[in-house]
């Protein structure tokens, strides 16, 4: 069953070759090298369409995930601006102030004016960052008046969803297709498995536009429920109930993973949420409610 390591190295090399082939194939649209050199431009365009070389955080499908994305971009651009100034000065200095150009070193070692300026300006920038961030944080904590509450209990290594005020509850674990391919040296190419390691048997189902409150706890160790499209990551902790909320604006299937190391199968407890139209949701909940 166990192949020698050398065979495995060959498969790594094969994958590398495949990578370069795919890169060559993509020349039709875009040279890979050019893509890499354009990565900064990619960030400017904030394009996440290309999953293969995705560069930026997804905007998500809730108002608050978009706000989170905007905060992320705001700080990013501040960093870029500061970097341009600081690295710019440094590069000018590295080019101009080198001994090989015959310059003589100056002797100054202090300037109170400069010190005051470069202490004050960062403080102002930080205040400009902090204000909108604090506003978003207040909204994130406001989980009042939900339309729907779901208790999520984490287990090593699966999730359990219970819809409050109904009889609907179920476990959600890694989909069968991935289960086969994830074994060591399974011989199954992960690229042949759709949504490898990111698919489950029973997804959580949610109606569009509803305010959903999530309550998290754990049965064993600490886990963390993370769905990037909703900008929610909350630890599921034994003995503690945590809370988060969201309102999804678009129907679709959204994927995430456990984010807190929880043992050997930490990498194998994905999260899938299906957002459907409210009417379809009513039918879904009715059909599942009678199951027990």
């Amino acid at each position, binding site marked *: 069953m166990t192949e020698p*390591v050398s065979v495995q190295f060959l*498969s*790594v090399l094969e*994958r*590398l070759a495949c*990578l370069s082939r795919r890169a060559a194939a993509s020349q039709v649209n875009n040279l890979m090298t050019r893509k890499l050199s354009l990565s900064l431009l990619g960030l400017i365009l904030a394009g996440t369409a290309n*999953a*293969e*070389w*995705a*560069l*930026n955080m997804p905007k998500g499908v809730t108002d608050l995930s978009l706000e989170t994305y905007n*905060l*992320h971009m705001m*700080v990013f651009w*501040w960093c870029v601006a500061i*970097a341009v100034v*600081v690295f710019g*000065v*440094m590069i000018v200095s590295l080019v101009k*102030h*080198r001994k090989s150009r015959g*310059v003589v*070193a*100056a*002797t100054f*070692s*202090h300037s109170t004016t*400069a*010190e005051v300026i470069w*202490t004050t300006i960062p403080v102002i920038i930080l205040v400009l960052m902090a204000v909108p961030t604090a506003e978003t*944080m207040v909204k*994130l904590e406001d989980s009042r008046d939900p339309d729907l509450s779901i208790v999520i209990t984490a287990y090593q290594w699966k999730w359990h969803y219970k819809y409050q005020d109904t009889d609907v509850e179920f476990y959600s674990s890694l989909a069968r297709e991935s289960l086969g391919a*994830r074994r060591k*040296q*399974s011989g*199954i190419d*992960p690229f042949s*498995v759709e949504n*490898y*390691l990111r698919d489950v048997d029973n997804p959580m189902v949610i109606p569009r536009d509803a305010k959903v409150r999530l309550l998290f706890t754990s049965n064993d*160790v600490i886990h*963390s429920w*993370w769905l*990037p499209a909703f*900008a*929610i*990551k909350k630890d599921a*902790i*034994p003995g*503690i109930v*945590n809370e988060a909320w969201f309102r999804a604006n678009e129907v679709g299937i959204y994927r995430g*993973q456990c*984010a*807190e*190391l*929880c*043992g*050997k199968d930490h*990498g194998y407890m994905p999260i899938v949420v299906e957002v459907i139209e409210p009417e379809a949701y009513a039918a879904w909940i009715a059909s599942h409610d009678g199951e027990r």
Partner: protein
Amino acid sequence: MNTSIIDAHGHDNDHSGDDHHGPAKGIGRWLYSTNHKDIGTMYLIFSLLMFFIGGTMAMVIRSELAIPGLQFVHPEFFNQMTTMHALIMVFGAVMPAFVGLANWMIPLMIGAPDMALPRMNNWSFWILPVAFGILLSTLFMPGGAPAGGWTMYPPLVLQTGDSFPFLIFSVHLMGLSSIMGAINVIVTIINMRAPNMSLLKMPMFVWTWLITAYLLIAVMPVLAGAVTMLLTDQFFGTSFFLAAGGGDPVLFQHIFWFFGHPEVYIMILPAFGVVSEIIPVFARKPLFGHDSMVYAASSIAFLSFIVWAHHMFTVGMPLTGQLFFMFTTMLIAVPTGVKVFNWVATMWRGAMTFETPMLFSLAFVFLFTIGGFSGLMLAIAPADVQYHDTYFVVAHFHYVLVPGSVFAIMGAAYFWLPKWTGHMYNEALGKVHFWTSAVFVNLTFFPMHFLGLAAMPRRIPDYSTQYADFNTVASIGAIGFGLSQLLFVWVLLTSKKGPKATAEVWDQPQGLEWTVPSPAPYHTFETPPSLSEMDSHH
């Protein structure tokens, strides 16, 4: 301590043994050494060894992650590798390297004959091989090495097999070693400076180490307390962190990060000191804003005690708590910015040359600043929720630790190597080592920003296929970086073949360490340096 009377020639006339005529012969020289230079050398060699052991574990991690699917190791072993890699690099490679530099250089920089507490110095070093021997032996125990992450969060860490008590004991020993080393540094600096060297006249490396030593004494006992509580929860029926017994798993995280955040600065402040020594020498210009550097480092140290919960924005803190920890964390950008601006101002209108130590220092300023930017992004609590426990965080802390701390250590090694060995190392090979390291370190860690933003969690042995490409790039970079370090060893091993170094080594460097011959004699500054030598410092 040497209490004998010192004569006019700087030699003592009592009969306390060979100690004062040169090193003892054989293995005894190293086992029983109380000489700061020998102990410094042992710390540095130990740290290099640990760097390679921890690095080998990183190679296992990156090989497994090179392509999707499990090729080489099982998930259990993968988790052991990430846990051990971190523990060894943090406590075995970076921290002992800085203690080694402190041992070698602090007495030379302040004009002291040795560290103040030489026997404790010997002990604090020799604890380390024992501590890491115990830690590494857990790899061969039933259930394997610790696999719950270096952060040791309960309840997961309590699922560790037979190796659990060995993990706790080795952490205790590492803490003991660090505390003793820190006491020694503080006592030496406070009591044994050359006459007329006031605190604000001290070189920056000495200053940053003084602050670091206080941080160590403040937080290592906190870590010891935290892991002791883990031990009693496991074996003695307490429930500090067990919800079933009324305890709180999150309490551990608060205690751990109260240690953990100052620990981050323990690993970077001495690097700030090193870079502040190197840049002025090769810019041929005094360090800009020496005093403000001291105040900035002190502010960073103070702030490090009130930011810890920014590691915990997802545990469910009250809004006020989140706001407090976010604001204090953002504040750290101010003194850190001051340091970076001061380094750039030191270069400005200098007359720079680019020997290997300078190259490492310049790369430090560039790449540590990039790690600082991602740190500022991580301070923004709502965005941190998206970054937390992803490869974005992995990219961030590797940027501040590898091209940050490790580059500073390597720069320091090249900078002071001629003083230690008496010979110039091979400059051309040193530059090759620098450029390969600099290229590969970015190839390894820069793509991890993208992986994290695209939602790849950290500490997973296998991943979905959309993360394949950047992971392959990172793995190629990691193997390149690993191989580059063999060149470092080669340069070190052949350094004695180089031309003889002068006492000054570089072009008119300032500082007492350059007033003694190269190699530095076994005993230096047996009489305190004179005032005129002091004047040449500032």
